[in-house]
């Protein structure tokens, strides 16, 4: 026998196939016939009609009563005592009222019966044996009986559909088609951003097989199976009936064509499951909300427990806040999916430990767990030793403020004493490491935290505390505090769990900002927050990002009231605002821009086609998300003589890819020639902040230019080895800094002479490169580092023609700045060539050109301005001999 099986098997006794669940055979059997369906539906209509008529009659009765009193208003005012005599009520209107009272009773009966019928799963009848875990009363269960009215109606619709299409069997696709008519499932696909009409259109093409049957259809095996699975799911969630939401998932998983159709509409397993979960969680939350408030009313209001054995705790009350009280009033956030952590906490207390320490990175939800614990304590759904107790948070700042160390110590002692005597307090201390390092001074120095440790070791109180992973390893691990408490690790929730946490917050955000959230918004929130926000952990960073996105959507909705949807695009915009990273899908415009990257770069860069091509290809790969996610976007080593455009290309890439030159972080490696300068780059434990790590931590999306890398100390080069390989570095404070959104460009002048000479001889660039790697680079850098770069690019020395083009580009910039002053600028081709020639030096590339243009053009123009020989509307020109002249503009 399959205990909690997933394999369907045939049961002769019941003459049906089904699943074994806790010793009970679960199957589904439904008697569907068109005539029966019509009968049922007509009956429902007739009953509604009867109810309506009775309701009207009952209302009429109450109206008669009201009318009667209206008629007697004079008596009511003059002599109300008269109302006490029975004779007073002898009146036809009263008779009408009395007669119609039976209709009131009838309506009460009808609503009660309907209410009872809604309860399809009675968990008293379905209770399990505690020892064996098997059903106590059930050996076989026709789970089709648990379908609620809406689900049953959908099934009827599916049957009618199959019968209209003359199909032999009703299959999951028919059911799914019928499900699409319900409001809930329609809302579900709106959340998914699926065009319902398109879905219906695609689905309708696949509803009928080719063969049509003359007989009435029967329920197909896969349909019966999926009803069983839906019912079991509803049972496991302790629902009162199986609903259309329970049917949706098994429908999808039982029909491959349906899955294909949805896949085409960008819906996959995870998406569908998470959205169904979203709706179910919301239903559950609404149910729990009512139960919670019913339970919360019974929690004592104040410091005293139910049996009045507790003691007043004025000092504790002064230095703390009562979390159970906040939970009772419903002020605390909801806690989702933390069963594992709760059971670890309870296990620790059950094993006789008095102190529990929750450890996890910032934003992982430690505080939410504490608040969840407070809520469980309000509902009293905690082990006996925590029942009828208060969870009280110690306010450390308040405890320490305005007091010397010894006074603080005394305050804490009094608090702990009170807690011990009261016996109904669980103490919560947030960021417990703050208690460390406060000592009363003097020779017999005594730390504040020792007071607490001693109380925990004596088991004088229940204590729960939190600390970040970082602070735990830095301050607590290995100390007596660490040893006196049981640690419970709080891990980041999984992708789907974070989605579900966001789903639980969604309705609140939607109501507050008047925005409708799609599933893609939630999905993108988790994806992008994981990718780009590194400082804080999930789920906090995801929650914050979602909030920001909703605010952006709200802002745009104010300008365009028809657009109230927050989708993935708003999330990408939020990321862009927070980090400057263009995280949107590659748009058509941007696609074109990326495809024409070479041309764009060449607007600023002259020559160096090979280098530009290599860099452009790497950037396209990165933007299309085809790169390895655990490494930097791209890494290059630029080799070549000075002044050939290595830095210029880096700047251009920064502008083209990140949108601004300011995204470039430049490190002149000649400043890092000592081994000790590692600290300058990554910082150290004494609080020195690393230049590189800090810059990248703040702006993960950046271009890092390592100028003259060969001059750095080998220890520093080893750092880059790890950086290029894993895409991360650990800084002096122990934080992991991610470089996966960075472009790394290192430049070097090594082998400049070789390059120049080899080029002159016309040797192939590939050969030159190999020669440089084999014979020159290896003297300064280890081969593994050289191999880590995505590309080693050799920059060619500039030719005279290149210099002319560069001169033209530089003159364009001068023209632009003159234009701002209202002065025009023109240059003769021959004149430019003469200037270019003057600025050309094969050894220094384009660098001397800048000086020449400065001296012979910019300085001259400046002099003209100062001598007042140049006015608005004049034109400055460079003549054919490279001289500067002015043509006067027209006078106004």
């Amino acid at each position, binding site marked *: 026998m399959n205990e909690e099986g997933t394999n369907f098997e045939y049961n002769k006794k019941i003459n049906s196939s089904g699943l074994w669940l806790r010793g009970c055979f679960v199957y589904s059997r439904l008697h569907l016939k068109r005539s029966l369906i019509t009968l049922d539906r007509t009956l429902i209509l007739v*009953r509604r009609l009867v109810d309506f008529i009775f309701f009207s009659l009952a209302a009429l009765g109450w109206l008669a009563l009201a009318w009667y009193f209206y008629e007697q208003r004079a008596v009511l005012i003059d002599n109300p005592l008269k109302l006490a005599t029975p004779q007073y009520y002898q009146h036809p209107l*009263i*008779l009408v009222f009395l007669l119609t009272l039976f209709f009131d009773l009838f309506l009460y*009966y009808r609503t009660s019966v309907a209410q*009872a019928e809604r309860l399809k799963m009675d968990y008293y009848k379905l209770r399990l044996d505690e020892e064996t875990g098997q059903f106590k009363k059930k050996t076989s269960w026709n789970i089709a009986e648990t379908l609620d009215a809406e689900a049953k109606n959908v099934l009827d619709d599916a049957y009618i559909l199959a019968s209209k299409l003359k199909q032999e069997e009703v299959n999951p696709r028919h059911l799914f088609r019928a499900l699409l008519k319900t409001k809930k499932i329609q809302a579900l696909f709106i959340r998914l951003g699926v065009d319902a009409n398109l879905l219906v259109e695609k689905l309708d093409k696949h509803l009928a097989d080719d063969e049509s049957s003359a007989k009435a259809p029967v329920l197909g095996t896969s349909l019966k199976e999926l009803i069983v699975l839906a019912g079991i799911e509803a049972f496991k969630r302790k629902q009162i009936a199986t609903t259309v939401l329970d049917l949706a998932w098994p429908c999808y998983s039982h029909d491959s064509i349906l899955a294909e159709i949805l896949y085409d509409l960008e819906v996959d397993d995870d998406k569908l499951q998470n959205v169904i979960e979203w709706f179910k969680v919301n239903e559950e939350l609404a149910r729990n909300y009512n139960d919670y408030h019913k339970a919360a009313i019974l929690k004592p209001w104040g410091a005293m427990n139910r*049996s009045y054995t507790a003691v007043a705790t004025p000092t504790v009350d002064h230095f703390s806040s009562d979390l159970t009280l906040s939970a009772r009033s419903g002020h605390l956030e909801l806690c989702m999916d933390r069963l594992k952590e709760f059971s670890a906490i309870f296990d620790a207390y059950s094993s006789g430990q008095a102190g529990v320490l929750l450890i996890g990175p910032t934003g992982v939800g430690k505080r939410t767990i504490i608040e969840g614990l407070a809520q469980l304590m309000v509902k009293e759904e905690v082990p006996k030793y925590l029942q009828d107790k208060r969870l009280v948070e110690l306010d450390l700042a308040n405890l320490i403020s305005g007091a010397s160390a010894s006074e603080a110590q005394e305050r804490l002692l009094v608090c702990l004493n009170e807690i011990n005597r009261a*016996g109904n307090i669980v103490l919560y201390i947030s960021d417990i490491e703050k208690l460390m390092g406060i000592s009363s001074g003097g020779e017999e120095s005594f730390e504040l935290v020792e007071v607490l440790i001693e109380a925990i070791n004596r088991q004088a109180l229940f204590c729960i505390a939190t600390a970040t992973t970082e602070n735990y390893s830095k301050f607590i691990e290995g100390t007596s505090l660490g040893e006196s408490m049981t640690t419970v690790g709080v891990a980041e929730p999984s992708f789907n769990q974070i989605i579900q946490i966001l789903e639980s917050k969604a309705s609140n955000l939607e109501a507050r900002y008047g925005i409708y959230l799609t599933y893609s918004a939630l999905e993108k929130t988790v994806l992008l927050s994981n990718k780009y926000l590194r400082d804080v952990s999930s789920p906090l960073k995801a929650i914050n990002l979602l909030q920001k996105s909703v605010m952006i959507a709200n802002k745009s909705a104010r300008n365009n009231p028809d657009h109230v949807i927050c989708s993935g695009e708003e999330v990408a915009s939020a990321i862009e605002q927070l980090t400057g990273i263009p995280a949107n899908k590659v748009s058509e415009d941007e696609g074109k821009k990326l495809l024409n990257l070479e041309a764009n770069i060449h607007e600023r860069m002259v020559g160096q086609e090979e280098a530009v091509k290599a860099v452009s290809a790497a950037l396209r790969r990165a933007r299309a998300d085809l790169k390895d996610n655990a490494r930097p976007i791209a890494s290059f080593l630029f080799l070549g003589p000075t002044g050939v455009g290595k830095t210029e290309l880096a700047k251009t890439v920064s502008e083209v890819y990140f949108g601004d030159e300011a995204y470039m972080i430049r490190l002149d490696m000649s400043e890092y020639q000592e081994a000790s300068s590692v600290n300058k780059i990554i910082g150290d434990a004494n609080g020195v902040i690393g230049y590189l790590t800090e810059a990248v931590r703040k702006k993960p999306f950046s271009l890092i230019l390592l100028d003259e890398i060969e001059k750095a100390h080998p220890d520093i080069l080893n750092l880059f080895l790890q950086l290029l390989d894993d895409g991360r570095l650990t800084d002096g404070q122990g934080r992991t800094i991610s470089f996966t959104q960075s472009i790394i460009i290192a430049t070097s002048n090594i082998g400049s002479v070789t390059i120049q000479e080899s080029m002159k001889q016309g040797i192939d660039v590939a050969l030159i490169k190999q020669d440089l790697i084999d014979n020159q680079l290896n003297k300064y850098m280890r081969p593994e580092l050289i191999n880590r770069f995505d590309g080693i690019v050799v920059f060619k020395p500039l030719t005279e023609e290149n210099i002319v083009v560069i001169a033209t580009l530089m003159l364009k910039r001068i023209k632009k700045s003159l234009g701002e002053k209202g002065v025009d600028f023109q240059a003769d081709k021959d004149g430019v060539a003469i200037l270019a020639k003057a600025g050309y030096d094969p050894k220094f590339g384009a660098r001397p050109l800048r000086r020449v243009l400065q001296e012979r053009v910019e300085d001259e123009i400046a002099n003209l301005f100062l001598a007042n020989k140049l006015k608005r509307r004049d034109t400055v020109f460079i003549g054919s001999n490279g001289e500067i002249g002015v043509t006067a503009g027209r006078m106004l």
Partner: protein
Amino acid sequence: MEHNSFTYFAKILARVIWDFLYFPIWWYSAGLLKTVRGVGHFYHHQEVSLNFLVWLKNIFVPMYGQHDIAGRLISFFIRVVQIIYRGFAMLLVLIIGLVFIAFYLTLPFMILFAIWKQLF
């Protein structure tokens, strides 16, 4: 089986008539059970909020952590007073519940009686 309009009509009529016939049966079976359960829940809720049993169980446990003899004595007497007071309150709650059930049971007859009085 042939299903024409007549058989449909007959079946629906039978079901609707059964709805009416079942009404008095329901009132004194499932309906009564519902009322008794409701009164039970009300009683239980009052019991928890009055903590009668908790007071009874802790009759010899000193209040406010006063473990000295005087504290114990005072506490015992206070608890006795509290238990008497809470006991009365519980009794009242019980009586209200029972009266409500009696009212439910006799309600149809009371209405009938009132109608009879009106007519004759």
